[in-house]
């Protein structure tokens, strides 16, 4: 569907002028038709390098219906001392033409300098819609900007797989979690895997196998060690394992966790053939001789179950969400509260941060 947009821009502007412009845009749009309403779901504040601003805007465009109702992109450029801004209000053209209720979202891009970041809250605060949840996402670092915004944001969106090291990423996530609700895209990348492992052991006949898991291996895109660690952390936490440290070379970490009935061998193995961030496969082994393997495949996850009686394989159906789908899911999750992440993060840090 194409979109209809009203646009405003100004060089050397101020937050007050931008706020006034947004209200004026709303008036203009309402003058076009009665069935027009601004979405009021959440504010998304993005801090990004100005050179990569286009890429970020494209990613945000890709989230489709999960687009935040007001997005404020702070495009940071060294040496800039004035704020330039443009604002737009967009609604689906099809809805307007058909006379349906046209729900619009507002986008603001601020081009500003690094010296603005320390007090970024003063610039952004007048621009967020009051009483809506505010989410901060800073995909290119700029921790000082995130820290400045924590006073007005309730949610911080991070992606632990984009940090240089998994250990650093998990420490940063834990630190942020003390001050705000954290939505970690690395955690969301593991959602289908968590669902599938849970489903596999859901039938009563397989449930007892959970108590005698002897090995758990996670394969992952080489930059997604944090996602793999979170998955292990989740499983260990849910099954009451006592975690031990994982050691080895980057891309190949091994260790053990202790369960009630014995040790569990844990392996995190990078998979260079995995082209996109996230996980590529998991293997669960039990002392009774069961081995369950899930791997990415065409049309879903390829499942293989090996027991003493033989081997079976099938496809667990599901389409890849892609990077845009993951980001959209991250924005949606900002409105929910996932109680699983905190304990999984704590367990992952015990294994990978020692």
């Amino acid at each position, binding site marked *: 569907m194409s979109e209809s947009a009203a646009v405003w821009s100004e060089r050397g502007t101020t937050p007050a002028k931008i706020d006034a412009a947004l209200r004026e845009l709303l008036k203009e749009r309402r003058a076009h038709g009665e069935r027009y309403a601004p979405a009021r779901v959440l504010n998304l504040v993005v801090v990004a390098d100005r050179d990569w601003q286009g890429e970020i805007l494209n990613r945000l465009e890709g989230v489709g219906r999960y*687009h935040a109702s007001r997005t404020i992109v702070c495009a940071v450029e060294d040496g800039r001392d004035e704020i330039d801004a443009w604002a737009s209000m967009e609604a689906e053209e099809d809805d307007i033409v058909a006379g349906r209720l046209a729900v619009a979202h507002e986008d603001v891009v601020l081009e500003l300098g690094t010296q603005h970041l320390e007090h970024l809250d003063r610039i952004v605060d007048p621009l967020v819609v009051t009483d809506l949840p505010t989410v901060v996402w800073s995909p290119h670092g700029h921790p000082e900007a995130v820290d400045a915004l924590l006073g007005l944001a309730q949610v911080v969106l991070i992606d632990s797989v984009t940090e240089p090291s998994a250990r650093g990423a998990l420490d940063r996530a834990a630190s942020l979690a003390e001050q705000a609700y954290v939505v970690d895209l690395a955690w969301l990348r593991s959602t289908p895997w968590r669902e599938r492992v849970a489903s596999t052991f859901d039938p009563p006949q397989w449930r007892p196998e959970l108590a005698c898991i002897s090995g758990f291996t996670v394969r992952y895109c080489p930059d997604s060690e944090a996602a793999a660690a979170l998955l292990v952390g989740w499983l260990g936490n849910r099954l009451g394992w006592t975690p031990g440290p994982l050691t080895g070379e980057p891309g190949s970490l091994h260790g053990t966790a202790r369960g009630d009935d014995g040790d569990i061998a844990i392996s995190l193995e990078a998979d260079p053939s995995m082209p996109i961030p996230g996980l590529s496969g998991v293997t669960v082994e039990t002392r009774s001789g069961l081995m369950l393997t899930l791997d990415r495949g065409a049309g879903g996850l390829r499942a293989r179950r090996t027991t003493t009686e033989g081997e079976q394989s099938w496809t667990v159906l599901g389409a890849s969400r892609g990077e845009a789908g993951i980001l959209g899911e991250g924005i949606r999750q900002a409105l929910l509260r996932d109680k699983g992440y905190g304990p999984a993060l704590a367990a992952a840090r015990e294994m990978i941060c020692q």
Partner: protein
Amino acid sequence: MTVAPPRTDQANPLAEGLERQPIRPTILTVFGATGDLSRRKLLPAIYNLAHEGALPERFHLVGCSRSDMPHGDFREMARNAIEEFSRRKPDEKVLSKLLEDMRFVGGNFADDSAYDKIAELHGEFDEQAGIVFNRVFYLSTAPTFFPLIVEKLGEHELDSHEGADVRVVIEKPIGTNLAEARELNQRVLAVLDESQVFRIDHYLGKETVQNILALRFANELFEPIWNRNYVDYVQITAAESVGIGSRAGYYDGAGALRDLVQNHMLQLLALLCMEPPVSFSADAIRDEKVKVLHAIHPPDPERVEEMALRARYAEGVVGDEEVRGYLDEDGVAPDSQTPTYAALRLEVDNWRWAGVPIYLRTGKRLARKVTEIAITLKPVPHLAFDHEGSVGVQPNQIVLAVEPNEGVTISLGAKIPGSRMRIRPVNMEFLYGTAFLSESPEAYERLITDAMRGDATLFTRDDEVEAQWTIVDPILAGWDAGRGPVAEYEAGTSGPAEADTLLRPGERWRAI
């Protein structure tokens, strides 16, 4: 890490906290798999569940219909249906894999060999997987086949299977009157336990209908006024701008009362009027809904014209389109007495609602498509100020809009700017579309998932269906006996003027 290790009698520890709870491996057998409902709704819904990874970890679909065809032709039919009617463009890889696991069994529904083949296929799936699949039978056939298919399932011992949950989903309509509904329920329940039966009312799968429960029971604001002390009257409207299209064969035998009032609109009424359930379990909610339906005294067929009005559309203009009258529609008998419009005045005789008229109104070829519940509160007892020179103070209204623009509107009296105390009504409007990021899933996606999971909350129970017919049957009997003429209304209008006779003095129907 403090979670205790799992025991088999405990809940799955891995499922806790997951947004999407596991569904046991399932074989879904669809009777009437090549029919219109299957092609337009069921198969696309199943594809969308597959796309989202929401089907059970292991899943097979068996199509069954009277037209015989090879598995490959059925898959091709399913592919075409999904490509045409899916709410999203299919992912070829997911679609191919879904189709791979589809099978087809052809044969008359009375044909024993068809059930043998189904049993054989189910057995093969179990054996190949080394597990016992749950079985869900979806009856997407003409209603006359419902009891036959269920009885055949019983004869062929497909109604239960060791180690598996066996469920049967039955599409509407459940009978065309109380006697038929009772007979169908009796024949179905002679084979199955009520807990195995999932009667579809797809209205209940709509997010906005479920939101009635959220609005009522998640907000302290409304409960204190949700009773006869504050509510003056209620209007429930389900208006359509379309005519009967090519459905004369069905519609002329059913009419507005059976088509929408007996099921969907009485469900809306029950959700609106029910007491808070003790829990949100299926039976707790259905128990409360049934109490409401039982509290509506069945009308007296001899006096049906005092509380019910029927009408049919005459030629007119809908939007900018000139349309035919009902009697001129293809397939409609020239002497048809079938109403395309029905309006009722009901009362729920209990402590909460006694004396509050609840008006129901539905019709085809009305001015526009709208489904809403409007609750009009009583007027304020005393006005301390003069409001001359304005439309004045109107009673507050709470409008729950179900479609097309889902939301809640509350009308309030507000002062018109100026030196005098003049009042006019203004609206405080909440629109679901502006407040949530998620797209509502299709009702059938939700209902199929719930049936596979065994959650009957959004399905109607036998006593619920019979209670609905108990209200509607006397009206149909009265009409069949000629009580109350069939009024006419011009297509594209708000319906017949005669509908006003159901209202109390001073009341008026909301504009459609």
